[in-house]
């Protein structure tokens, strides 16, 4: 960032020196000592060329260079009464002093701008026989502008540093994610292998295998959730796919989740209510079918609505049991699931038959356009 500011300063230096030389030629008659005056302008030109070269490399921007820059500027300024007499109007360097000022402001920022401006102002006031309104105005502007330029240079450099740090952090994060994927894959492989071998060994091995299987499922689900996390932008909407994938880590029962693979964004309360309804269905499976019973969750995006199906392979609910339960005033779980879905403007349907398991179909309007296809 400093490099860019100093590169910009080169152009300013050129403009300032051309301006200073032109004005001094134009006002050549004001010189009481023309040779001395010409000599000082020549030194300014040489110094401008040298400074342009010297400031170009960061390694050469030592305090000595900046001090020399300011000292030469001050010397040129102080020479004005010698060259032009006590009652001179315009100083020899004129606006050329800005080059050293801004160099200080870039390098030492607010403090640099302030110190350099104070020194230049002090010299400017000291060499004059009287302080006019214009002199005061120039000094005032100098004292205000130089620290502000210094402050802005500091802010720019800080922002550039912050941006570089953020870019670095993002690159590190990406690399970490890449490594994590490789590690996850390795861990998944080992867990799957333990699960497989454990089942073959039997006994305690089978128990180990079962544990490895649970962890494998948990890690797999976690990875999918992380993938979904990247797209999380609008807080008011959450991804139903990611929420349901989390259920894959759940025990009991042993849940398998199938989704369309791409995020389905719904208002946050719809997502959480629907997810809770699915959890209630799964709790039911664990209670009535068994803790080790398998259950399946299928999420489908129908365009205008989403459908979640929760299925088990338990004994099912004998005909009439639900009706008798509700007529006896025991509304229970199924009523609460239906209630939740109705509150969302959707519906919950229960399909069951003896020995055919139970299948809940929960559907909610998604407020998205229907499929455009004919």
């Amino acid at each position, binding site marked *: 960032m400093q490099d860019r500011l100093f590169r910009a300063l080169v152009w300013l230096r050129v403009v300032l020196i051309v301006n200073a030389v032109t004005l001094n030629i134009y006002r050549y008659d004001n010189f009481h000592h023309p040779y001395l005056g010409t000599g000082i302008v020549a030194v300014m030109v040489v110094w401008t060329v040298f400074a342009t070269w010297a400031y170009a490399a960061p390694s050469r921007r030592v305090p000595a260079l900046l001090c020399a820059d300011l000292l030469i500027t001050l010397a040129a300024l102080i020479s004005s009464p010698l060259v032009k007499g006590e009652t001179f109007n315009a100083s020899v360097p004129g606006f050329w002093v800005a080059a050293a000022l801004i160099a200080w402001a870039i390098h030492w920022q607010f403090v640099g701008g302030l110190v350099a401006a104070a020194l230049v102002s002090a010299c400017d006031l000291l060499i004059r026989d009287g302080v006019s309104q214009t002199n005061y105005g120039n000094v005032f502007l100098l004292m205000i502008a130089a620290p502000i330029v210094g402050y802005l240079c500091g802010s720019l450099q800080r922002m550039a540093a912050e941006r570089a740090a953020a870019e670095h952090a993002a690159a590190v994060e990406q690399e970490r994610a890449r490594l994590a994927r490789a590690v996850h*894959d390795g861990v998944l492989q080992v867990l799957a292998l333990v699960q497989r071998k454990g089942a073959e060994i039997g006994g305690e091995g089978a128990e180990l295998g079962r544990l490895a299987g649970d962890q494998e499922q948990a890690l*797999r689900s976690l990875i999918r959730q992380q993938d979904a996390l990247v797209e999380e932008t609008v807080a008011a909407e959450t991804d139903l796919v990611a929420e349901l994938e989390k259920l894959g880590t759940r025990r009991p029962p042993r849940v398998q989740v199938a989704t369309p693979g791409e995020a389905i964004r719904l208002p946050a309360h719809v997502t959480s209510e629907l997810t809770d309804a699915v959890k209630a269905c799964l709790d039911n499976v664990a209670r009535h079918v068994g803790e080790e019973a398998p259950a399946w969750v*299928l999420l*489908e995006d129908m365009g205008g609505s989403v459908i979640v199906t929760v299925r088990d392979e338990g004994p099912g609910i004998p005909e009439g049991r639900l009706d008798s339960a509700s007529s006896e005033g025991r509304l229970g779980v199924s009523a609460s699931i239906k209630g939740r879905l109705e509150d969302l403007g959707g519906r919950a349907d229960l399909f069951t038959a003896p020995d055919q398991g139970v299948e809940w179909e929960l559907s909610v309007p998604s407020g998205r356009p229907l499929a455009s296809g004919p």
Partner: protein
Amino acid sequence: MDEPIRVMIVDDHPMWRDAVERDLAAAGLKVVAVAANGSEALARFPATRPQVIVLDLQIPAPNGVEVTAEVVRQDPSARILILSASGEQQDVLDAVKAGATGYLVKSASKEELIDAVHRVARGDTVFTPGLAGLVLGEYRRMLDGGGNDDRPRLTERETEVLRLVAKGLSYKQIADRLVLSHRTVQNHVQNTLRKLQLHNRVELTRYAIEQGLDEE
């Protein structure tokens, strides 16, 4: 008895490769080659002519999806069974579109793996409920996407069958529920994949032609 099924195993984890090889050999299958990465797989495939490739998707380049596409291009009769640990959904879907006809997660039991290899070798498709959900989603996305009218579409029956697979029913359970033969259910599932793969090939060809025309 018929000739043993010729299998190639592609996996960058040696212990997995060994475990799968042992299990398949013990079940009377003939492991004709193993490979640790995509380039080994593509080099050994033409020399050993396996009928079934048991393929891990997360392998050093070229990856599982690219290997699938290249193998099917060289020999459309080769069958690919994806055996993946990570279950990265887009990769699985891409591999299936590229021509794989089976997908198992690595936690599947030895019996499930051997059964899957036999079924894939017979030309059957082996789906997990998760893959069926992805394929259903893919068809719906194509329907939503607008554009070409040659997009593949599922028949009502195919949708019905695929949904039941996604809900975890076995082919036999589906056959019982819909009063169909096991073979018919199998055909419906196969059709859903075949249309997707055909569409994928057409799209790739169209893309290639467009690129070619643009260059002129």
